[in-house]
């Protein structure tokens, strides 16, 4: 079974190459077919491998499939090698299956767009890179996939490159993640230098053997890799690129900037968790950073007008939850939240895209309204997604994963209780902001009349994702409900046994279930009182229009709307000094030195040129003089 695993990333890669080479000449229908077919192959194989795995798990619960030797040096060699264990199997399944649904959705969503085949070429390339990332056995191959998804993200955010703002957003996402990637590369080199290998499993074994608990080398390596992960996952302090990345087409936002790529950072930490487990200080940093991320992102999401920006900030916040779980060592909880989040966030984004399709690409939630009857399919899909995001109890997948995280927070020592409280507050906020969107978009009077209709390729992915979003949580339930722990026991060989829930007081569990309901109630209450509409803020994103009343509350809201001023801060701290430097270097002061040499040469040339008078006799005399000198040198020297 394992020897065909290479087809899983290869199929989208081949699809991408074919589309890149011939897509411009193919019809849109054929491009979409090829682009989807390659993912179908990947998805079917992934499912087949997963089924096979369940029936007959391999020895030691992992498979290593070596393809070929990549780099061969005297004391070092790197192989293109795949490593499949329950963690990467789940990642692979999510990427290929959700990728498939989003591809199907895109074939209809992107119909009539210029660059249809280009879109599928990029999307296929992304899936190939992402699969390479999760299947990689060593950090070098992982890094290749890591950069590959970064490039695809750049290309797809800037897909409509005719608008300057999209190009800016693409560059921003690329540059911010690249800064983090440099740290990650340094971390990889550090680890390979210190441990002599980049192959993950031997490296982790060596690290655990050689480095003491909390050692400085382990801390440095873990911290550097963590920076890379934070950048890719848009966590504090790198969170600013993700909302701008919403400039890309909505399926891209669903696939790359919600379901898969942005969780690569979490995957990295889980993959290397023995290394992180060595350094509790780094874990604490992860947890605290995650709390900051959750709270700022949730508060920002609360005041956005643009539906995609709300979802973007909610993505940041939900990945924050995953990192929070990582920060307290609840690896399988993070994985579980990744799984549910991938499903419900893809669902939410696709629903948003489906709404925008029918409303002339309107994304402002205050111009929508009353869509409950008009777009009932999307309403139910979005409602299920929102319930799952808000973690409404029992009916949604998100409830179980979030509950698992909250439980592990409560049980963790040290800061655990405070983290639990912050996470609980975040859960209230999450429910509030997402149901604010639900109420504004689907209830009240109609503001923009929908046009057109949905094809089957829109509805089927939505329905499938909605079913998954409401049922997938049953894989893992708390003990007092059904005592189902399929998921964590599946991951147990890799990630160890999750913390038991025996010591959890009942009121803690109850609080976790009540918080989202409270959030929904707040959202509804403020909707009924018209508070959301009153505080809608100026049209456009984040910029202060100046016409709003100068009250304290509006000032705070404006600050929140602008994402807590991180963009402003980075602009002042990093971008402006850089531009200043560029302005200085524009006239190239170093070059002036070289130009002065050139000017001296020119002057010398002018002087020499004056000697060229075109008089034969003088030339002859000079020749004679030169011969004299040569004779002097030859004879007397």
């Amino acid at each position: 079974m394992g020897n065909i695993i290479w087809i899983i990333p290869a199929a989208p890669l081949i699809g991408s190459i074919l589309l890149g080479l011939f897509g411009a000449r193919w019809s849109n229908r054929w491009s979409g077919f090829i682009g989807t077919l390659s993912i179908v192959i990947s998805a079917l194989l992934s499912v087949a491998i997963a089924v096979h795995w369940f029936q007959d798990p391999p020895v030691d619960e992992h498979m290593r499939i070596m393809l070929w030797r990549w780099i061969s040096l005297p004391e070092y060699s790197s192989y293109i090698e795949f490593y499949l264990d329950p963690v990467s199997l789940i990642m692979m399944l999510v990427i290929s299956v959700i990728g498939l649904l989003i591809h199907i959705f895109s074939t209809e969503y992107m119909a009539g767009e210029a660059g249809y085949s280009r879109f599928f070429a990029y999307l296929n390339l992304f899936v190939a890179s992402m699969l390479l990332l999760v299947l990689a056995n060593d950090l070098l191959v992982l890094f290749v996939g890591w950069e590959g998804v970064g490039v695809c993200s750049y290309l797809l955010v800037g897909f409509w490159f005719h608008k300057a703002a999209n190009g800016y957003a693409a560059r921003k996402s690329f540059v911010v993640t690249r800064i983090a990637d440099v740290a990650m590369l340094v971390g990889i080199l550090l680890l390979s230098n210190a441990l002599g290998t980049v192959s993950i499993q031997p490296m982790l074994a060596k690290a655990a053997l050689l480095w003491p608990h909390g050692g400085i080398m382990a801390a440095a390596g873990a911290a550097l890799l963590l920076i890379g992960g934070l950048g890719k996952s848009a966590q504090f302090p790198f969170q600013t690129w993700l909302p701008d990345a919403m400039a890309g087409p909505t399926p891209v936002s669903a696939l790359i900037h919600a379901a898969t790529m942005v969780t690569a950072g979490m995957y990295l930490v889980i993959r290397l968790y023995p290394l992180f487990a060595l350094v509790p200080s780094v874990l604490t940093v992860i947890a605290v950073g995650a709390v900051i991320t959750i709270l700022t992102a949730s508060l920002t999401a609360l005041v956005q007008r643009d539906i995609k920006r709300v979802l973007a900030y909610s993505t940041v916040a939900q990945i924050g939850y995953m990192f929070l779980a990582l920060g307290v060592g609840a690896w399988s909880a993070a994985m579980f939240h990744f799984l549910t989040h991938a499903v419900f966030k893809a669902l939410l984004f696709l629903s948003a895209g489906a709404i925008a399709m029918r409303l002339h690409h309107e994304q402002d939630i205050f111009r929508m309204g009353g869509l409950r009857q008009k777009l009932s399919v999307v309403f139910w899909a979005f409602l299920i997604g929102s319930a799952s995001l808000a973690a409404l109890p029992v009916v949604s997948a998100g409830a179980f994963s979030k509950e698992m995280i909250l439980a592990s927070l409560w049980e963790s020592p040290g800061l655990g209780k405070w983290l639990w409280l912050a996470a609980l507050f975040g859960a209230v906020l999450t429910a509030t902001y997402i149901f604010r969107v639900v109420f504004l978009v689907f209830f009240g009077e109609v503001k923009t009349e929908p046009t057109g209709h949905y094809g089957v390729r829109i509805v089927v992915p939505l329905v499938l994702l909605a079913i998954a979003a409401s049922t997938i949580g049953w894989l893992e339930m708390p003990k007092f409900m059904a005592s189902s722990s399929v998921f964590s026991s599946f991951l147990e060989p890799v990630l160890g046994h999750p913390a038991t829930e025996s010591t959890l007081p009942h009121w803690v569990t109850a609080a976790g279930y009540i918080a989202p309901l409270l959030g929904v109630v707040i959202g509804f209450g403020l909707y009924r009182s018209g508070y959301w509409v009153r505080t809608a803020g100026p049209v456009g994103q984040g910029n202060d229009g100046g016409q709003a009343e100068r009250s304290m509350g509006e000032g705070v809201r404006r600050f929140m709307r602008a994402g807590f001023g991180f963009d402003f801060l980075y602009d002042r701290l990093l971008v402006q000094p850089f531009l200043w430097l560029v302005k200085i270097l524009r006239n190239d002061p170093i070059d002036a030195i070289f130009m002065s040499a050139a000017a001296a040469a020119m002057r010398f040339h002018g002087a020499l040129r004056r000697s060229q008078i075109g008089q034969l006799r003088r030339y002859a005399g000079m020749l004679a003089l030169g011969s004299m000198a040569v004779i002097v040198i030859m004879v007397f020297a």
Partner: protein
Amino acid sequence: MTYSMFDVVFYGAGAFSVVTTTLAITRTNPVYALLNFVMSILGIALVIFVLGAPFAASLEVIVYAGAVVVLFLFVVMMLNLAHLKTDFGVKRGRSVRLAVPGVLVISIIIEIGIAFSGRFGKETTYHIIGPSAVGRQLLVADIIPIELGSMLLLAALLGAFHLARLSPERGRQ
């Protein structure tokens, strides 16, 4: 110190060629200059003969006095000197113009004299190196340089042929 016949011939011919060369380079009329040049070449040929190189002496007469000077005469005729200003008059600062080459030439002579003095021995035995020895050296040992020389001549031939073709559109400019 007695003077042999060889010495007499050598010094006589050498002085003759120096005088005629001086005359050749100072004439204003090119034809007179060429006649003096022929005389000087005959003198040099005699010197070469005395030095024991009869083959080279005959070549000197044939090639220089024959071919080269005749070629010169052809060109002088083709230049149509009657309609060409050849006397440029004396310009100001002539003395300076003569002084510079004078100093240059004198210093070169002194330099070569210093370079030669006290080297290569004083006396030499007298050999006549006949055409056969030269031919053997030339056509057996130096066959490659001979071929290179022929290529040089070929290049000169082609160049002369090309340049001498008067193209109306460019030649009349």
